[in-house]
């Protein structure tokens, strides 16, 4: 191909899109003016993220193989090391690398600007990678007196000093990588003072602020722990818990907000969704900004030494301000799909907009699966276990692991997989090696992981199975007591988890395979399978004209046809169902807790 000969320094032809003399090209799917500098950095962070997902996935195999005690793969000492590798690869490395890419998409790409300070972006990347490798090395070479850090590295249990240093490095790297994003917004606002930011950029901005808050907490936690480990400082273990969870939970809030930004973005581009009320959606983002950083308190609900008032105030995000924000998005996003699709003539009856949706397109299916599973499994359980009293039943049980796999896997990871698909199609310009498998993958992964998470919750709540232990169900060393009643559910857990891992592996194969062997999409051509049917694929291709999704997207600019005038009753019914599930599980959890003996003053 002629293009590749023109870019001789290019790696595997992955960075060889054609740009005009200013370095721009117009994306045929979104209609955005994309500058080379943005695109290349998005690709860099996105592809690297998949590597960490692969590493984390490999350790998921050994972790599941051990927790399913019928298999009993690893010894206890090895187990803690493998679990630490799994946790850091997945929760920090995979997710945060995608998040940096999302900031670059939400900021400069959506605004049609170049990425400023690209040297800083690259420096941030290198520092982050340095942090990752240091952490991997530190975990893998753990030896006495040091212990595996797991995710939390609670002091005074010591981990290798290199581990804290690596964590600190990683956090600093993320802050550096975020700077070009903030500079972009700064310049945009200076050049166009009167203009409102697009919703996606606005959300990305909120994400960025929450990220900086969280990462500063991380500097204190890991920097302090490093100094403590080197015996330079004393650090109170209860204070460490708070600082750790400012970054530990804070990063989850970044995940949440970034994921919601992607939901607005992708459902719009591939599903024909619109924003039904700018006012309401933006207010919800503002609520996050004010309240969500109180989330650290969720992890301290059954800690000694913290007043009841502080715990209630903070765990409730001050009267559930952040929960309300999530409830708002829970309506606004599906409503956007419903109204947008009705407007495009794609929604008869109550649910026609859903049944006619492009489910075979993974960039639509994945976010929608994520919205549903995150809401029903992750969101509800998060509020439940975040109640002061119910937390006694959830804290550090396997149910907690079930909760956060519902949020960070069913929600964030599935959503971010869609982001990677999107980057492959619209930036790397590659077709998937198999459309069939790509359509199947989100359902396979989401379905199996959903079942896995449910089983985790059941064994945690109904049998009190603790997290972070290799032996407890079949055998507890040194006693005849065990939790063997949970064994049957562990069979379901184990099988479902292995299917989920296969679904994750399929994603990696599709992503890497498409990058290496996928057919190129020539510039200017419309990628038919990406056309949302909200964008009328039939029109686009039947008569040979190049109607792009963009024309359908442009429909949302029509002032005489406002989307809020369209019906949202399907969404309303779904939301009522959701609220009913919420209320029922709430009552069930409270019923269980009141069956206990008397506890507390």
């Amino acid at each position, binding site marked *: 191909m002629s293009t590749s000969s023109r870019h001789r320094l290019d790696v595997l032809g992955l960075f060889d899109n054609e740009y005009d003399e200013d370095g721009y090209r117009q994306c045929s799917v979104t209609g955005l003016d994309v500058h080379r500098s943005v695109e290349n950095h998005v690709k860099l962070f996105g592809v690297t993220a998949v590597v960490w997902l692969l590493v984390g996935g490999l350790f998921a195999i050994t972790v599941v193989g051990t927790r399913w005690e019928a298999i009993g793969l690893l010894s206890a000492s090895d187990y803690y090391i493998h679990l630490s590798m799994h946790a850091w690869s997945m929760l920090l490395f995979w997710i945060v690398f995608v998040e940096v890419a999302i900031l670059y998409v939400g900021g400069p790409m959506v605004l049609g600007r170049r990425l400023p300070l690209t040297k800083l972006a690259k420096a941030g990347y290198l520092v982050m990678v340095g942090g990752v490798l240091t952490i991997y090395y530190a975990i893998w070479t753990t030896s006495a007196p040091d212990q595996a850090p797991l995710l939390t590295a609670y002091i005074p249990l010591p981990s290798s000093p290199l581990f804290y240093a690596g964590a600190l490095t990683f956090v600093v790297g993320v802050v550096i990588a975020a700077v070009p994003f903030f500079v972009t917004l700064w310049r945009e606002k200076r050049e166009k003072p009167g203009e409102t930011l697009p919703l996606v950029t606005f959300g990305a901005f909120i994400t960025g602020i929450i990220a900086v808050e969280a990462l500063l907490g991380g500097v204190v936690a890991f920097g302090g722990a490093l100094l403590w480990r080197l015996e330079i400082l004393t650090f109170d273990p209860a204070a460490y818990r708070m600082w750790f969870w400012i970054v530990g939970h804070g990063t989850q809030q970044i995940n949440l907000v970034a994921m919601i930004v992607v939901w607005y973005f992708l459902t719009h581009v591939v599903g024909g969704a619109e924003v039904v009320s700018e006012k309401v959606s933006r207010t919800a983002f503002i609520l996050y900004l004010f309240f969500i950083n109180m989330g650290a308190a969720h992890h301290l609900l059954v800690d000694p030494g913290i007043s009841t008032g502080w715990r209630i105030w903070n765990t409730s995000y001050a009267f559930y301000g952040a929960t309300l924000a999530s409830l708002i998005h829970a309506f606004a996003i599906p409503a956007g799909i419903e109204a947008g699709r009705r407007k495009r003539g794609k929604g008869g009856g109550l649910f026609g907009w859903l049944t006619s949706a492009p489910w075979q397109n993974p960039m639509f299916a994945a976010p929608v699966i994520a919205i549903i599973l995150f809401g029903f499994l992750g969101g509800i359980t998060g509020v439940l276990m975040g109640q002061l*009293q119910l937390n006694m039943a959830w804290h550090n049980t396997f149910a907690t692991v079930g909760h956060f796999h519902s949020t960070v896997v069913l929600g964030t990871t599935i959503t971010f997989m869609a982001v990677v698909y999107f980057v492959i199609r619209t930036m790397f310009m590659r077709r998937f090696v198999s459309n069939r498998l790509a359509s199947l993958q989100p359902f396979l992964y989401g379905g199996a992981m959903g079942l896995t998470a449910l089983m985790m919750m059941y064994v945690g709540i109904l049998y009190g199975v603790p997290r972070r232990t290799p032996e407890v169900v079949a055998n*507890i060393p040194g006693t005849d007591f065990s939790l063997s009643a949970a064994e049957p559910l562990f069979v379901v857990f184990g099988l479902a988890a292995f299917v989920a891992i296969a679904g994750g592996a399929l994603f990696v194969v599709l992503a890497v395979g498409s990058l290496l062997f996928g057919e190129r999409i020539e510039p200017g051509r419309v990628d038919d399978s990406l056309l949302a049917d909200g964008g009328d694929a039939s029109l686009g291709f039947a008569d040979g004209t190049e109607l792009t999704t963009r024309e359908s997207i442009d429909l949302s600019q029509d002032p005489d046809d406002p989307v809020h005038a369209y019906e949202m009753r399907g969404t309303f019914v779904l939301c009522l169902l959701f609220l009913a599930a919420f209320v029922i599980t709430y009552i069930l959890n409270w019923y269980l807790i009141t069956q206990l*003996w008397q506890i507390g003053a």
Partner: protein
Amino acid sequence: MTSPLKPPEGNWWDQPVDRRETIWLGLGVGWALVLFGWMSAFTRVGDQNPIGETYRVSAEEFRAKMGEYQDAGEETDEGLVPPGDDVLIGAGQFYWDGLPVVLEADRQYDIHLFAYDVQHGFSIRPEETLSKQINLQTIPGYEWVVPMTFDEPGTYRVLCNEFCGDGHEAMHGRLVVREGEQ
């Protein structure tokens, strides 16, 4: 006007909000207040709250207290019968100091939870009904006094559910509740 990728034009703030979305907002606010109100009220009227006094104590001090307590209590086959209403439990790598202990049903005890070395998790359930379980964190330097009244006689099992080092998986203890004297 309503693309998330374009700056909204005109006076978007005053654009009408759909009636159903408004209802949903109302439901959301209402539910948020129920969540808050119930949690808050339950600390006053409810019987299960992770609430108790906390004291800053060093490991040496708690060990000394534990020694006196064990001397004053009565050692039986099933475990220690505490001398009064206080029950001391100290978590260490990888044992529960003060367990097994023998308590009476329907009598309120002050359970003193402490960690000697690193953080541990006090996870307790009756052997017969695994779903009746609760979990409290123990942190070195903090003695947490949580009152409890066990109403059902039986054997209660204590596990550690905070990772406390290689060997954590073997950390368990026992608490026996006997019929009260009446």
